[in-house]
């Protein structure tokens, strides 16, 4: 029951916000809607913790240990982003970058986007997963072009076209998957349900599924932002409003990776080889290296952190490709901590670029003196994302690295190279931004404290101590993904 509530809340919130429009209290309704979603998410997590995996809505939806934590994460980050966006978007209005109609559109579409992602995570049907993924793209396309500047429109068009093309490949993969499934499970909707497919995956035709996986990999890989399919990502992240960058980077990429991993499990079951894993490892490693070196060349602050997202999604994809209990555990953990740390970074980056009214890193200086929360938030966020102990990202990267040394020792140097270069590139840029005197172009402003603090505390806590329920879910999920 909680499951359906979780899906309905953002949908209703979207409808209400479409009617409320640009009233003074619209951001508060947005927060209330997201908080309701998060409450439902917690309720669902509690149910799963007590009773285990469940099906709902005539087998149309399901939760297990793998998607429950992602659903809670999605609802949590969307709530904190709503809190952040209240101050941020108010400020953008004062600067005259968005008008009344666009604010109405922004709030409604934000909730539709959350709904689409939750539908992706909770649906039991591979076809509906595809539809929801496309809906998530479509709902954010016009948010990326919200400012209507030439570069924003270009970025949104690129996002629309590239993700449209990519996702079309995934649909072809889904058709092939259905073709193989129908032979075993018979015709109709039942043949596309995960819960049925995973039971019979060893009887599915291996040649068809390995062909299907290539298409699914290209399709969902485009949305994950894997190199060489990543071209849309830095543009969309740097040109859209910062709250949207935070949810795109922190949530949408995770959801796409979730879809890919689910497909991999089926393909592995059918082919009984490491074929799909090898493809994922290749894409992952390429993403890590290319993104790490691209980080060095960036001048725009949001662009730089979007390359960092590509790198981290590469790490997670690599981990799932590698397989085995340690790497998979690391991959699951990495999705969680990256999402928390990266959205916290985007919150501080949003405030920093508003204080200086530019995204050019050369012009952003003296953040710690100007606003300690933004300065330290950015500094600590970057430390966390770069994989410094005691933050959670260190734990996950350490696990993945250990598993690599054990199972694929030849790839370890490449992985390490990527991590080290990314580390150096980030610090080289962030150091001058946070230190130094307050420059003339910096204007003081009130910032949203809570989202940044909450995220950073969580990332730190997960690094220090893994709660029992999370540990249990991850172990169950590792078994599922074997």
């Amino acid at each position, binding site marked *: 029951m909680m499951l359906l509530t979780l899906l309905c809340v953002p949908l209703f919130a979207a409808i209400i916000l479409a009617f409320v429009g640009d009233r003074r209290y619209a951001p508060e309704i947005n927060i209330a809607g997201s908080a309701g979603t998060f409450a439902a998410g917690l309720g669902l997590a509690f149910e799963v913790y007590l009773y285990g995996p469940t099906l709902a809505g005539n087998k149309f939806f399901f939760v297990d240990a793998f998607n429950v934590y992602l659903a809670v994460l999605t609802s949590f980050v969307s709530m904190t982003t709503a809190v952040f966006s209240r101050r941020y978007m108010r400020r953008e209005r004062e600067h005259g970058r968005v008008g009344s109609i666009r604010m109405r559109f922004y709030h409604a579409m934000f909730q539709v986007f959350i709904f689409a992602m939750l539908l992706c995570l909770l649906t039991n*049907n591979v076809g*509906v997963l595809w539809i929801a993924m*496309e809906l998530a793209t479509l709902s954010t396309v016009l948010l990326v072009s919200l400012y209507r500047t030439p570069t924003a429109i*270009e970025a949104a068009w690129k996002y629309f076209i590239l993700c449209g*093309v990519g996702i079309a490949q995934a649909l072809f993969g889904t058709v092939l998957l259905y073709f193989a499934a129908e032979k075993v499970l018979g015709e109709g*909707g039942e043949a596309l349900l995960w819960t049925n497919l995973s039971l019979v995956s060893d009887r599915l035709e291996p040649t*068809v599924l390995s*062909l299907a996986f290539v298409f699914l990999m290209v399709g969902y890989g485009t949305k994950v932002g894997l190199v060489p399919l990543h071209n849309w990502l830095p543009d969309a992240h740097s040109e859209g409003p910062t709250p949207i960058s935070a949810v795109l980077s922190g949530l949408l990429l995770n959801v796409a990776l979730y879809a890919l991993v689910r497909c991999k499990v089926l393909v592995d079951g059918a082919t009984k080889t490491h074929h799909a894993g090898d493809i994922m490892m290749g894409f992952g490693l390429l993403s890590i290296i290319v993104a790490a070196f691209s980080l060095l*060349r960036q001048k725009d602050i949001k662009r730089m952190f979007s390359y960092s997202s590509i790198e981290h999604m590469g790490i997670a994809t690599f981990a799932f490709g590698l397989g085995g209990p340690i790497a998979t555990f690391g991959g699951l953990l990495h999705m969680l901590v990256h999402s928390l740390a990266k959205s916290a970074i985007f919150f501080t980056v949003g405030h920093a670029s508003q204080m200086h009214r530019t995204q050019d890193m050369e012009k952003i200086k003296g953040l710690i003196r100007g606003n300690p929360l933004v300065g330290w938030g950015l500094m600590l966020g970057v430390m966390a994302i770069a994989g410094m102990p005691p933050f959670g990202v260190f734990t996950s990267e350490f696990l993945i690295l250990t598993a690599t040394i054990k199972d694929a020792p030849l790839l370890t140097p490449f992985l390490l190279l990527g991590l080290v270069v990314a580390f150096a590139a980030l610090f080289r840029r962030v150091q001058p931004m946070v230190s130094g005197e307050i420059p003339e172009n910096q204007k003081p402003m009130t910032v949203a404290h809570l989202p940044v603090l909450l995220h950073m505390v969580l990332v730190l806590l997960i690094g220090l101590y893994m709660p029992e329920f999370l540990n249990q879910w991850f172990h169950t999920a590792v078994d599922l993904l074997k």
Partner: protein
Amino acid sequence: MNLTIAANINSFLAALVLLTAFGMLVQRRMYGLIHLFAWQGLFLSVSTAIVGFVAGKHHLYISSLLTLSLKVVLLPYILHVLIYRLRIQKEVDTVVNVPLTMLIGIALVIFSYHLTAPVRELSTLVTRSTLAVALATVMIGLLMMITRRHAVTQIIGFLAMENGLFFAATSATYGMPLVVELGVALDILIAAFIFGIFFFHIHTTFDSLDVEKMARLKESD
């Protein structure tokens, strides 16, 4: 209807779908492109109905009607209106190197036949031979999006790809489950509204629908 006759008619329609795909690949005029797209949708819709009839799958009639209303009537109409409103009836899109584009297209068809060979061997459906054509249509749509510069042409390429996917679903499996087909149709409808809005934004901002003009976002060195 005899199964062999049905299979023959279906292959003939598949050939027509492929032909329209090639036509779109090199058509310069906007209206010409839309007409070709509408024809492709019509062939697809008729083919789906025939498959539905001989295989006794009644949900394919719904898919066929959906294709007819969406891809033969509604989308071409929306595109017509947009082109009229934006006053770009006279605009032509440049096609660089027609023979080369055609050759790549032919190579893609051969590649599709090669790629789908294992699937065709496994299938027992009357429509199995058309799966390669479906994949080729997807690939040619993709090629069209890469080679063309005009926003409207790129969108038509995108929609042609979607036609190919729909065709793949009917030829490999007698159609996806109805809930999926309806969802996909809904997504396309939303996409249609979004690209409609986009055309206006691009046109007012760049004063042209040539996407080459949008090249500000590049990696700086």
